[in-house]
C-alpha cells in the first residue's frame, strides 16, 4: 500500500466530508434555531442536482447550472417553509417527522413524474476536468480539489456570517431566546424563512456539486441525509463547528474504512473472506463511530451538556 494511495484516499475522504458539511450545516442550523427536524432536506439536495443538470444541459454552462441549483433549492425551501414547515415549529418531533416524510414522498414522486426514473447526467466543465499535479507528484482530479475548496470557502463564509454579521447575531439570538428576538423588533417569521432558504440553498449546492461525479436521480438525497444525521449526532445538534468536525470525521471514516478494512483483514484471513468481511464492516464503520461517540458523549462532541 503506497503513500500515494493513502493521500488520495484522505483527499477523497475530505471531499466527501466537506460535501456532507454543506448538508449538515443547514440541518443543524434549522434545528438549532427553529427546533425542527427536517427529513425533506435530502429532497432539497435532489432539487439542486436536478436544477443544475437541467439548466447546464440546456445552456451548456456549468456555472449557470450551479447558480440555478442554488436558486431552485432556496426557492423550493422558502415555498415549503411558508406552506408547510412554519405550521410545524410548535408541533412535537413526531409530527415534524411525519410531515417532512410526506414532503419526501411528494418531492421524490413528483420529480419522477417530471423527469422519469432514468438518471440525468451533469458533466464536469472542461476547465475543471482532468487531474492536477500536487506537490509530491500525485495526480488528483481537479474537480474534486475544487469541491474541497468550495466546501472550505462555504464553511468559512458561514462562520463569518454567524459570528460577524447582524443576521448572525439574530440567528444566535433566535437559538437562545425566541421571545427576546421578537422583542427586538425582528420579523421572526421572515427570519425563519430566510434561514430555511439558506439551509436549502446549501443542500442544493451540495447536490449539484456531487451530481457531477455521481448520477442525478430520484432518491439520491436520502442516503446523504442520513449520513448528515450521523454527522450531527456526532458533532452535537445546533453546532456549526460540530457539524464541520463531524462531517470530516464521517467522510474520512467512510472513505478510508472502505479501502483499508479489507486490507487489514488480509493479515488475518484469506483474501476473499477478508474482502467480504472487511467490506461488511466498512459499511458499518461510521455507525460504530457514532455509537462510540454516543457512549462517550451522549450530546455529541460540541453539543450542549444535558
Amino acid at each position, binding site marked *: 500500500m503506497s503513500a500515494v494511495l493513502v493521500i488520495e484516499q484522505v483527499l477523497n475522504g475530505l471531499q466527501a466530508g466537506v460535501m456532507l458539511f454543506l448538508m449538515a450545516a443547514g440541518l443543524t442550523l434549522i434545528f438549532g434555531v427553529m427546533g425542527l427536524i427536517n427529513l425533506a432536506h435530502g429532497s432539497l439536495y435532489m432539487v439542486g442536482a436536478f436544477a443544475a443538470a437541467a439548466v447546464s444541459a440546456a445552456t451548456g454552462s456549468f456555472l449557470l447550472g450551479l447558480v440555478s441549483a442554488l436558486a431552485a433549492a432556496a426557492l423550493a425551501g422558502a415555498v415549503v417553509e411558508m406552506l408547510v414547515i412554519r405550521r410545524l415549529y410548535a408541533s412535537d*418531533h413526531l409530527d415534524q*417527522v*411525519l410531515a417532512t416524510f410526506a414532503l419526501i*414522498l*411528494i418531492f421524490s414522486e413528483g420529480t419522477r413524474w417530471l423527469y422519469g426514473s432514468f438518471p440525468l447526467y451533469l458533466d464536469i466543465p472542461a476547465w475543471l476536468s482532468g487531474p492536477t499535479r500536487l506537490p509530491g507528484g500525485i495526480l488528483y482530479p481537479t474537480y474534486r480539489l475544487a469541491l474541497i475548496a468550495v466546501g472550505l470557502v462555504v464553511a468559512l463564509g458561514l462562520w463569518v456570517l454567524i459570528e460577524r454579521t447582524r443576521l448572525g447575531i439574530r440567528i444566535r439570538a433566535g437559538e437562545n431566546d425566541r421571545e427576546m428576538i421578537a422583542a427586538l423588533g425582528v420579523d421572526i417569521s421572515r427570519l425563519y424563512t430566510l434561514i430555511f432558504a439558506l439551509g436549502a440553498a446549501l443542500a442544493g449546492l451540495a447536490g449539484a456539486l456531487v451530481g457531477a461525479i455521481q448520477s442525478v436521480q430520484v432518491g439520491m438525497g436520502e442516503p446523504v441525509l442520513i449520513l448528515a*444525521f450521523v454527522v450531527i449526532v456526532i458533532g452535537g445538534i445546533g453546532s456549526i463547528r460540530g457539524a464541520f468536525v463531524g462531517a470530516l470525521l464521517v467522510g474520512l471514516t467512510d472513505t478510508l474504512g472502505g479501502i483499508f478494512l479489507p486490507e487489514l483483514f488480509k493479515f488475518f484471513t484469506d483474501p476473499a473472506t477478508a474482502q467480504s468481511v472487511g467490506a461488511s464492516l466498512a*459499511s458499518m464503520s461510521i455507525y460504530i463511530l457514532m455509537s462510540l461517540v454516543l*457512549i462517550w458523549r*451522549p450530546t455529541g462532541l460540541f453539543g450542549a451538556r444535558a
Partner: protein
Amino acid sequence: MIPERFLNALLLGGLLGVALLADWRDEPFTITLATRATILAIAATGLNLALGLGGLVSLGHAVFFGLGGYAMGILAFHAQTYAPVELGPLAIEGTTSMPLIWVTAIAVSSLAALVIGLLSLRTSGVYFIMITLAFGQMFFYFAVSWSAYGGEDGLSIYVRNGFPGLNTLDPIQFFSLCFVLLCLVLVLWSRLARSPFGLALNAARQVPARVETVGLDPKRLKLAAFVLSGAITGLAGALFADLNRFVSPSMFSWQLSGELIVLVILGGVARLCGPVAGAMLFVALEHWLGGLTEFWHVWLGAILLLIVLFAKGGLVGLLSGRPASHD
C-alpha cells in the same frame, strides 16, 4: 360517533370478512392483500408499543422487520441447501418450521432492540430519531454487502414454510394464521397498556422526572418497551418474508421505517386498533391509487400532510370522535 370498542370489532371483522369473501369468490390476490395488511398491522402494533405507549419515535423499526425477515430467509435457505448455519463452533440446522422460525425471529430482533435501545436511549428527542434512523441504515448496508445471502439482490425461498396441521400454501389458511397472530398481539398490547408496566411507561413518556422520584427508572421502562416492540415487529418480518417468499435489503430500508410510522399515525397513535386501521387503509390506498397512477406516493404524501396538519387523532380518532390521547 362510533365507540372505539365497537370500531375495533368492526375493523378486525372487516379484515376477516374481506379475506373470507375473497376466498368464497376465489380471488387469491385479494386474500394476499388482506394478509399483507394483517402482517403490516402486526409490525405497526409492535411500533405502537414503543411509539404510542413509550413515546419513542423510532425511525429504525425496519431493522427488526428486516431481521425477522432474514431469520426466516436464512433458516429456510439452509434447509433448502441441507447445509447447517455455521456460527463459529456452533452449527444450526436450517428449518422450514414456522414456529421455530418465529422464535428465532423474535429472539434475534429482541437482542438487536436491546443493543440499539441501550445506545439510543442514552439520548432523547430528536437525537433518538436520528440515531434509530442511522442504525436502520447500518443494517441496510450490512445486508447489501452480505453476499452470502444474496447481497443487494436478496434471497428467494422456493417453498413456504410449514405449520403443523395447516397447508400454508393455501392463501386463506396462511391468512388465518397471520390473523390469529395479529389478534394475539393485540390482546398482549391491550393487556400491557392497562398493566402496572403500562401505567409506569405511560407516565415515563409524559413526566420522566415524576417516575424517577417514585423510585422507578424511566429509561429501563422505555428499554423494555423498545425490546418488546422490536420482538413483535420482528415476528411480523418473518411472516412478511413468508408471504413474499423473498427477503431483500429493502426490508431494512428507511422508507419502510417511515411507512411503519405512517401506518400508526394514519390509524391513530396509542390506540389499540390504530395500526390495524392504518395498515388496511395503506394497503387499500396502495392498491387503488397504485392502479390509477404509478406515482401514487404523491397522493399518499398529500393525504399524510393533511392528517398531520388537520386530523391529529388519525382514522380511529376521527371515527370514534375522541381527540388524540396525546400529542
